[in-house]
């Protein structure tokens, strides 16, 4: 206990170094920009910035990525409030009340509510990160080869099932990723596998290039196929971006409720910020003393949605850091960032690399303060950026994808891999396949393979060894639940979103 407190304290001291503070401020600002641009997503932004973190110390690199993640989730609310177009799906519910407030000349108030609630949602979510992550990591200590194999399968069933329109298609995407993960030298005996005479494939398909291609380059192609429209002008507002004491008091219970819900949703693999925002909004309405204000610019509606979606951030890191199971696309990309730094999710993060992990946690706490400050002070500027045309974004993002993938090994072959995955990602998205499942399979594939072959070697080829331990059976059952969880999630999402009669235009924009 004392040792943990000491690590926490040291984490804050390290996180307050000049370099880390710069990383937080820069990451948050960049995240907000990415979040407020309706064409770009948090996962895409984090993927695009991965190469920049290579040469940084692990803690600083992770702080940058965490800051982009938090900034992007909050940033989506700016365009949702000012131009009625959520920057990310996580802010879809914010648009309902936020834009109504803008129409009434209270845009500053709506933005202040979004900033304040996002700050508290994110900050409180760090409590669970500090409390649950080390406990869950202890559980991971019990995993041997067979359990690691099943853990990989469980991770895949969760992300493949939940993020796809068709469960089978999601699983197909995961299986395709597993096949791609076998490219390169055999991890056990070093035999060349599926390298097609290309020596740069010896270490397998570079995960970062695949990430940039699947999330960022594919988005360029998605933007390029649509008609380029002028975005609506961001509403000009003259009211101050502040909240009165009474208003803060009014939204306090809403923030606490949304924090609890958002945090639980974040910890559950598969559920994400887009579900949390509607759930937060829904509960705000349910418990409000002024229900009649909802639909006409209720401050509690904005608070409920924004506190919930930001509360997801801390929670979602828990299964990723401890078990290596990212619950959604952004955390899958963040896990890529962790592995690139030479770190593996699991108990070692809390023993061997505890100093780094607690610095990252402390950084994650401090990022929330930067988000509050930068968000409040820079709202007007970010509002203008949110109008940036896709015609400018297309070439700019392409250039960043090319330089990002080139910078990994200073090799143009990586750029080829990135473009191939970009085209693959585009086609996958068009035909409702799941790009996040491919990324996760690329990460989990080698772990699963080592687990499977390790277990078979020890047992002399007896496949029954995979079913012997109780932990294996728990993971098998969880995998089966993982496959069927989309039915429940789908019903749940439809219920919370449907209840609110969400503006069709907002929904369309979000889903596209």
């Amino acid at each position, binding site marked *: 206990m004392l040792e943990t407190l000491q690590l926490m304290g040291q984490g804050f001291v390290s996180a307050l170094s000049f370099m880390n503070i710069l990383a937080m401020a820069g990451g948050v600002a960049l995240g907000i920009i990415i979040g407020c641009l309706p064409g770009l997503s948090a996962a895409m932004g984090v993927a695009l910035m991965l190469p920049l973190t290579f040469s940084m110390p692990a803690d600083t690199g992770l702080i940058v990525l965490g800051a982009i993640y938090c900034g992007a989730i909050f940033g989506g609310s700016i365009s949702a409030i000012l131009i009625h177009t959520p920057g990310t799906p996580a802010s879809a519910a914010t648009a309902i009340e936020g834009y109504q407030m803008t129409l009434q000349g209270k845009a500053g108030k709506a933005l202040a509510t979004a900033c304040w609630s996002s700050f508290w949602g994110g900050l409180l979510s760090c409590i669970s990160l500090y409390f649950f992550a080390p406990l869950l990591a202890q559980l991971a200590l019990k995993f041997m080869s067979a359990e690691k194999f099943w853990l990989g399968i469980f991770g895949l069933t969760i992300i493949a099932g939940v993020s796809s329109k068709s469960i089978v298609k999601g699983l197909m995407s995961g299986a395709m990723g597993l*096949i791609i993960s076998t490219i390169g030298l055999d991890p056990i*005996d070093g035999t060349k596998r599926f390298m097609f005479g290309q020596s740069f494939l010896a270490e397998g398909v570079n995960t970062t290039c695949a990430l940039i291609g699947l999330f960022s380059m594919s988005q360029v192609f998605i933007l390029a196929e649509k008609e380029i429209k002028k975005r609506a002008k961001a509403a000009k507002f003259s009211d101050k971006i502040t909240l009165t004491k009474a208003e803060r008091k009014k939204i306090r219970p809403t923030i606490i409720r949304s924090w609890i819900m958002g945090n639980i949703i974040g910890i559950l693999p598969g559920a994400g910020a887009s579900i949390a925002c509607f759930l937060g909004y829904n509960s705000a309405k349910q418990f409000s003393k002024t229900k009649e204000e909802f639909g006409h610019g209720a401050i509690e509606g904005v608070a409920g949605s924004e506190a919930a979606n930001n509360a997801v951030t801390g929670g979602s890191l828990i299964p990723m850091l401890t078990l290596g199971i990212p619950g959604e696309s952004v955390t899958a990309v963040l896990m890529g960032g962790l592995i690139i730094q030479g770190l593996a999710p699991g108990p070692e993060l809390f023993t061997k690399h505890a100093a780094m992990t607690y610095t990252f946690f402390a950084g994650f706490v401090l990022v929330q303060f930067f988000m509050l400050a930068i968000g409040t002070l820079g709202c007007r500027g970010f509002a203008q950026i949110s109008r940036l045309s896709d015609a400018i974004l297309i070439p700019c993002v392409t250039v960043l994808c*090319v*330089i990002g993938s080139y910078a990994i090994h200073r090799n143009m072959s990586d750029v080829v891999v990135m473009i191939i995955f970009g085209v693959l990602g585009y086609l996958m998205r068009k035909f409702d396949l799941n790009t996040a499942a491919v990324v996760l399979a690329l990460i989990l594939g080698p772990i699963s393979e080592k687990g499977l072959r390790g277990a078979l070697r020890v047992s002399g080829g007896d496949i029954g060894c995979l079913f012997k331990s109780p932990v294996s059976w728990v993971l098998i059952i969880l995998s089966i639940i993982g496959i069927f969880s989309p039915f429940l999630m789908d019903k749940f999402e439809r219920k919370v979103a449907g209840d609110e009669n969400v503006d069709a235009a907002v929904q369309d924009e979000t889903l596209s």
Partner: protein
Amino acid sequence: MKMKKTDIGVVVFMYAFCAFFYAYSSKLSAGSKTYPLFTITLLFGLTTLYLIQMIIAARKFGVESGVDKVFAGFKALQFTLSLVLTIVYFFLVKYLGFFSATTIFMIASFVYLKVPLLHSVIALVAINLLIYLAFVLFLGVRLPSGILF
């Protein structure tokens, strides 16, 4: 839900993908191909399951094209040009150097996508500056230099 004809393409692609890797795996040693064969079998099985789902959907609800939904609002010329420009950009980087190629690529894209001149100039300068500061100065990446610089 009706079966989409476009999904036939998905199924064909997945089977072809399995066949391609299966053919290559025959050259591997027994130990090396254990896991790839497991993954190929998994994809093959799932694709077959999806095919069965499609057949059931076709019998129950009928068949629809799906192309109109998948490619709704598709701007073929704009998309093709963006793709071609990206590939040309890749080769230009190799022969002209990174900054020259980036400038040409961005100007060509902005002209085609009808971006106002002032916005184009700002974006061009900002991106080149960002790359120089972040990648060249901060990360120390030696960018490809071609016949220009």
